[in-house]
C-alpha cells in the first residue's frame, strides 16, 4: 500500500532568535543544503509547495509564498501549490507526494519559512492570530476576542482536562521538556542547548496553567526544505530514499479548539487511525518518533493518537523512560520545537530524516529504519510513516 513517493533530501538554515536575516536568505540556505543532501541541482526541481503560502495573519508567520521563492531561486516548475487549508503543516508534503505519484512533477521542493522571532513586537506578538486587525472572522473569532488569544490558552485547557481525567502532573510534562533538552545538547543546530533540570522546569513562570514557560516552543527565524520525489526519480538521488509508507489526514470533528466532544483527544487521533488503516506496519515497528510539540502536552496526545500507548497511559509511558534518550520510542531526538525552535513541524521531520540516514551524531538512534511524524495540535493534524528500505 506504499505511496510511490519518497523524501530524498532535507535542509535547514542556521536558525536562531532575532537573527535579523531576511526570510529569503534562510530559505535559500535551506534549499542549497537540501539539494546537496539529495544530490540534485536547481534544475532538477520541477515542483514547489508550501504551507500556508504568504500570510501576515500573525507577525513572521509565513513571509514567503511559492511565487517569491520561484522568482528568487529562478525555478522553472511544472507544478506549484500552497496549502493553507489542510492536514496541518504537513499538508504541502502530502500534496507533493500526490503530485509526484500522479506524474505532475518529479522532485518537489517543499518549504516552511518563519521569521517570528525578528518580526514580533510588544504590540504584535508572534502566533496571536489576527493580531493588529480591527475585526476578526473565522474559527478564532470565537476565541481571540474572548481573551483566549494564544494557542497556549487553548492547549492549556486541553491539558487541564487531560490532567483531571488521567492524573497527569506537571512533572510528567517536565519529563517531556527536560528529555528533549537532553537530546538537544547533542544537536548543534538547536537554539536551546543549556541543560534543563526538573527544578528549572518547575520553577519557571506560568504561561497558561498548567503550562509554564518550558512547556512552550520557541519562536525562531529560519527555514526548512524537504524534497519529495517520485519513486523512480528518487533512485537517482544521493541517499537511500525514505519511502512514504502511509499518510493520515482524517478529521472527525469541527475546526475549533473547544467543541470536540472529548478534549483529551484531538485531530491527531483521527489522522493516526487513518494512517494505520493504510499500512500493514504497526507502532511496534517504529524506531524514531517526531511528534508535534508546540506545547509539551501535545506529546502525550500524539503518543496515544499513534497508539504507542493506550488512552490515558502516556504519563506512565513517559515516566517509564520510553521517549527520552536511550528509550525504546525516542521522541523528538533533535530537541523538538521546545528546545530546537518552532519550524512548524518541518524541523521535526528534518530530524526524523536525519536519523533514518544515520546522521544523528551523538543523538543517533542505532540503526533507525522507520519513523513516524505527526504535525499539528488541536484540530489540525497530519501523520506520516517513513521507512528506509
Amino acid at each position: 500500500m506504499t505511496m510511490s513517493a519518497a523524501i530524498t533530501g532535507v535542509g535547514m538554515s542556521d536558525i536562531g532568535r532575532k537573527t535579523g536575516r531576511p526570510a529569503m536568505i534562510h530559505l535559500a540556505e535551506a534549499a542549497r543544503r537540501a539539494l546537496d543532501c539529495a544530490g540534485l541541482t536547481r534544475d532538477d526541481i520541477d515542483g514547489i509547495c508550501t504551507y500556508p503560502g504568504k500570510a501576515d495573519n500573525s507577525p513572521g508567520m509565513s513571509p514567503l509564498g511559492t511565487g517569491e521563492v520561484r522568482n528568487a531561486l529562478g525555478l522553472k516548475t511544472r507544478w506549484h501549490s500552497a496549502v493553507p487549508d489542510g492536514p496541518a503543516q504537513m499538508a504541502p508534503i502530502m500534496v507533493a507526494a500526490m503530485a509526484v505519484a500522479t506524474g505532475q512533477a518529479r522532485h518537489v521542493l517543499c518549504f516552511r519559512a518563519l521569521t517570528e522571532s525578528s518580526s514580533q513586537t510588544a504590540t504584535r506578538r508572534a502566533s496571536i492570530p489576527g493580531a493588529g486587525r480591527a475585526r476578526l472572522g473565522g474559527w478564532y473569532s470565537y476565541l481571540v476576542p474572548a481573551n483566549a488569544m494564544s494557542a497556549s490558552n487553548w492547549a492549556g485547557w486541553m491539558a487541564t482536562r487531560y490532567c483531571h481525567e488521567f492524573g497527569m502532573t506537571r512533572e510528567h510534562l517536565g519529563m517531556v521538556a527536560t528529555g528533549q533538552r537532553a537530546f538537544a545538547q547533542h544537536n548543534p543546530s538547536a537554539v536551546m542547548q543549556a541543560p534543563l533540570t526538573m527544578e528549572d522546569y518547575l520553577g519557571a513562570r506560568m504561561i497558561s496553567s498548567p503550562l509554564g514557560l518550558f512547556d512552550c516552543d520557541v519562536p525562531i527565524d529560519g527555514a526548512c526544505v524537504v524534497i519529495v520525489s517520485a519513486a523512480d526519480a528518487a533512485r537517482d538521488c544521493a541517499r537511500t530514499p525514505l519511502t512514504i509508507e502511509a499518510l493520515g489526514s482524517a478529521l472527525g470533528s469541527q475546526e475549533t479548539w473547544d467543541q470536540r466532544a472529548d478534549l483529551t483527544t484531538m485531530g491527531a487521533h483521527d489522522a493516526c487511525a487513518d494512517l494505520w488503516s493504510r499500512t500493514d506496519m504497526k507502532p511496534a515497528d517504529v524506531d524514531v518518533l517526531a511528534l508535534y510539540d508546540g506545547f509539551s502536552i501535545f506529546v502525550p496526545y500524539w503518543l496515544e493518537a499513534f497508539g504507542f500507548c493506550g488512552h490515558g497511559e502516556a504519563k506512565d509511558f513517559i515516566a517509564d523512560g520510553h521517549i527520552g534518550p536511550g528509550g525504546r520510542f525516542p521522541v523528538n531526538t533533535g530537541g523538538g520545537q521546545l528546545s530546537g525552535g518552532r519550524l512548524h513541524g518541518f524541523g521535526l521531520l528534518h530530524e526524523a530524516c536525519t536519523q533514518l540516514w544515520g546522521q544523528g551524531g551523538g543523538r543517533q538512534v542505532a540503526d533507525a529504519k522507520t519513523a513516524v511524524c505527526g504535525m499539528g495540535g488541536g484540530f489540525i493534524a497530519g501523520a506520516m510513516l517513513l521507512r528506509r528500505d
Partner: protein
Amino acid sequence: MRPLPELTPENTAFWTGGAQGRLMIAFCGACRHAIHPPQLVCPECWNEAIEFKPVSGTGTVYSHTVNHQPWAPDMAVPFALAVVDVDGAPGVRVTAEVVGADPESVAIGQTMRVTFANIDDIWFPQWEPAP
C-alpha cells in the same frame, strides 16, 4: 483593546444577545440540533431554517486555564478562561473569561452563569460562578 469579531449574518445574534441579557444559541429549526459556532446551514441535516433561541445562561465547566501572560499591552493578568458546557444546548460549549471569582478557584464541574461585557456593538459572554 482586544480584537473584536466581525458581525455576520450567522453570528450577530450570538454577539449581540447580551444587550438584552440573553445568551443566544443557534438551533436547527428542522432537526433541533444545537449549532456552535453558529452556521447558516445545519451541519446535521443541511436545513437553512436556523433559529436563535435564548438559553438559560447557565452551564458546567468542562475545562479551564489561568492565563498569566499579557499577550497584548493592555491585557490585565492573571485571569481564568472557562470552557463551559451550556445548559439547554447539547454539545455546545462557550469559552469565555471568568469574572467575579479568584482565577485559581475555577474547577471542572463548577456551575457557572453568563454575564456580559459590552465593547462597541459586541456583548461578550463572560462566566461567573452561579450563586
